[in-house]
């Protein structure tokens, strides 16, 4: 258990990348990018965890009760909103590509080359 969370985070990063490079559909590719991003949430929250401690909310427990790190939680919150916006922008590009070309297969779509 000591390092399982970190291994899971690394795995999510790599498996998301695998999805991206083998993708046959731009929207599928965007979703795989979201998987890569989820690796960072898992990593951040695992780093800030403390065994046996509670959530960093002192509404029903007195201040001073052992709590996990709230900083990584704040970072993860920011990260989630950022992820959603980037996904939406890429999606808009994909929708427009489809409108022009009628396909979303990256093998048939290219930016400039050579």
């Amino acid at each position, binding site marked *: 258990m*000591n390092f399982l969370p970190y291994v899971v985070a690394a795995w999510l990063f790599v498996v998301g990348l695998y999805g991206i490079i083998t993708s046959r559909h731009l929207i599928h590719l965007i979703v795989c990018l979201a998987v890569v991003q989820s690796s960072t949430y898992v990593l951040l929250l695992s780093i800030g965890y403390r065994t046996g401690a509670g959530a960093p909310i002192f509404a029903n427990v007195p201040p001073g009760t052992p709590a996990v790190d709230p900083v990584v939680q704040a970072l993860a919150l920011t990260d989630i909103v950022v992820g959603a916006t980037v996904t939406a922008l890429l999606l808009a590009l994909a929708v427009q590509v489809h409108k022009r070309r009628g396909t979303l297969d990256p093998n048939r779509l290219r930016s400039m080359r050579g």
Partner: protein
Amino acid sequence: MSERGRLLLFVAGAAGFAALLLWGLAGLPAFGDYRGPYGDVINASAVAQRHLTNMASAINFDYRGFDTLGEEYILFTAVTGLALLLREIRSEIEEAPRDASPNRDASDRSDALRWFGLMLAGFTNLFGLYVVIHAHLTPGGGFQGGAILGTACLLVYLAIGYRAFRTVSPKVLMDFADATGAGGYALIGLGTLLAGGAFLQNMLPLGQTGDLLSAGTVPVINLVVGLEVSGGFILMFAEFLKETRKPSREKDA
């Protein structure tokens, strides 16, 4: 590169990459052994310093409020970018939007479904509002509540239709929410500057810990964030929904 070549190169690269990641991760303290000091300092002092109980909100809206300003602007910029990317261009001949015909929406869905959807949307909205305003006390806040509010408006679309969605979230109003949400955050900061404090310094009275009106500027900023996030999410939905209107027109035509 051939597909096979790409995959082989990826496997080699990913193996090296994973080895690097694991080598780095092995240097971390074991899981469950967070050592601080940043989070511990805030856990120890924020209740006394800021009269609030939710530490994540304390960080997002006070200690590291400047990050959140940037984050709000990321959302704002994305919404502006979506409007740019999904704009209607001159070459696309525009007909009157299909849903301008009043009968269309009603015919698709049964009454029971519509009522159920409306009720669900109503509850979700209430829940979203609750989540927004209790940021400094319990889990939740402007992001989560804003996202829930945005999703609630989408439920209206699913239950009744596009026109109803636009009625509960008129474009002008949402543009305004989006802009004032992001701009309002910046203005709060400028206000604290004018008052002689540091940018985004918490200068309002802190009140009683546990009250709805406590923690100084935290609930104010949180409301502004809620405004921005809900407006931003609804505008994002709206841009994409606008897109879906077009192909159905083509098919019918």
